């Protein structure tokens, strides 16, 4: 039986006495160049060579359960707005949100349900399959070719209920290929059951998307930035710096496992919430047959995993719930960051209360995270610091920047990735 009070090294999943960086020597250990966080040219490169080419998650199937249901996702970095709709045939399709007549934005609300999409300007109407269905005063047009006037489709696919789009006219890989081992290793996690209800918080932040993302893919900050909100959830006497239990890179994606403190002292309301249900983080390990990609090291002190799905999605999974962070670039120093916490359906008031407390702690923790982002961007702009130095446990930050550089280099050279 593992002694959870043993010094950190006894809990460590790293090679004995080693560092996470020892597992990935090709990434090096040197300083990280900061220019990419403030450079408009780099932002354009990322737009062209990454965001226009990769699979991007836009939502979940539960948002559009019935034929006619739709939602809209603005993707500023690709200079577009996308309608995601469930057709009469139950298939999910995606289209650029623009009328074929004279370019009016077709759907103006964030979500809804209907039989057709009708443009406000001249009432051109399209079916749920994107086909042009009706043109008022059609005889006053010249040789309309309806097939060529359908809504412009966007590649769309699903993985475990997450809906992804790809803005490339011909995506270089399928979604399954893109997700690779990260995707296959999480298959079977009960996302559907756990997606019955959700709470989301959206922030417009004056910071580069990578500044925002990097804040969430390391836990070195936890004992300091979160000393008020979660002082003892992810640290202990034996693990004061929240050292990770596991870390692995999965091609362009990555995964880390967080330590949970079994001696965490709940506050009175937290204890009440525990009595009536469970919320975001549980410190009990149980053999509940989670897929191989969840707590891959099967560590008894496991709290939850952060899966970083390149480029801009973090998918965090625990035993009884999961959450996501998405970082949508808007400009070199502007990002729309959205965090969503998912729970199974609450059937009783006790469960409802417990989940609400989980939402509140999650929200107030990310409000702590959010505060540093704009301040960081504002002083980065000075150019006073040309490099960052990275801690061993900040390997995911290093990896993320490495993948961005590799992908843009290969794309510029015309090599498909």
């Amino acid at each position, binding site marked *: 039986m593992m002694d959870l009070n043993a010094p950190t090294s006894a809990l460590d999943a790293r090679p004995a006495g080693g560092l996470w960086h020892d597992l990935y020597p090709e990434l090096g250990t040197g300083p990280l160049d900061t220019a990419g966080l403030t450079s408009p040219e780099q932002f354009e490169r990322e737009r062209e060579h990454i965001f226009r080419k990769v699979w991007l998650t836009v939502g979940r199937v539960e948002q559009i359960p019935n034929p006619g249901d739709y939602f809209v996702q603005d993707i500023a970095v690709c200079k577009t707005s996308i309608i995601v709709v469930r057709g009469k045939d139950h298939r999910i399709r995606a289209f650029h949100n623009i009328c074929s007549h004279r370019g009016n934005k077709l759907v103006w609300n964030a979500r809804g349900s209907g039989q057709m999409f009708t443009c406000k300007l001249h009432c051109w109407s399209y079916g749920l399959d994107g086909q042009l269905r009706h043109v008022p005063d059609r005889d006053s047009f010249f040789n309309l070719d309806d097939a060529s006037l359908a809504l412009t489709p966007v590649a769309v696919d699903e993985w475990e209920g997450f809906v992804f789009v790809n803005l490339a006219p011909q995506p270089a890989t399928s979604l399954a290929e893109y997700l690779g081992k990260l995707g296959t290793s999480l298959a079977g996690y009960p996302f559907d059951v756990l997606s019955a209800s959700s*709470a989301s918080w959206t922030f417009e932040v004056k910071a580069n998307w990578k500044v925002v993302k990097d804040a969430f893919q390391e836990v070195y900050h936890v004992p300091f930035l979160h000393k008020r909100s979660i002082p003892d959830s992810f640290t202990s006497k034996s693990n004061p710096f929240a050292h990770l239990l596991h870390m692995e890179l999965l091609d362009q994606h990555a995964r880390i496992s967080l330590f949970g403190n079994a001696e965490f002292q709940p506050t*009175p309301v937290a204890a*009440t919430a525990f009595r009536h249900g469970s919320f975001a983080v549980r410190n009990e390990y149980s053999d509940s047959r989670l897929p191989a990609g969840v707590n891959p090291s099967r560590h008894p002190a496991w709290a939850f995993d952060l899966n970083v799905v390149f480029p801009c999605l973090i998918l965090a999974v625990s035993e009884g719930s999961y959450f996501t962070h998405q970082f949508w670039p808007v400009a070199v120093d502007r990002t729309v960051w959205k965090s969503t916490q998912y729970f199974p359906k609450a*059937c*009783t*008031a006790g469960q409802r209360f417990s989940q609400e407390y989980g939402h509140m702690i999650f929200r107030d923790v*990310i*409000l*702590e995270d959010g505060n540093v982002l704009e301040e960081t961007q504002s002083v980065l702009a000075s150019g006073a610091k040309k490099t960052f130095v990275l801690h061993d446990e900040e390997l995911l930050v290093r990896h993320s920047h490495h993948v961005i550089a590799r992908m843009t280099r290969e794309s510029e050279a015309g090599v498909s990735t």
Partner: protein
Amino acid sequence: MSISVLPAAFADLEIWAAWSLPTEAQRSARRQTVLFAEIEAFYHAMLARIDAALAHLDQTPVDALPEAEQRLMDLCLSLAEVAPAVEQFRQPQVVDGFAITRVTMDRLG
């Protein structure tokens, strides 16, 4: 004489009825705008009754609560809203936090 909104067994909580708010945006706005002394007083009053309140409410599926019970449920949710302010931050706002007034909240399901 003021109108009772809560179930009769929780008449003692009527003075806190202004905290019975149906959405996170409303509960959060109240936490950000009232004095901390009131937040703390509400927290202690509600904490003393939360187990009894949830036991009362647990008798009915949470999607089918009658009006007075729904008001009591919303009061319980306000306890969740203010708990971090009292237990962690000792002030209404997250200490050194991103301004919650800039955040868009959404609930599905």
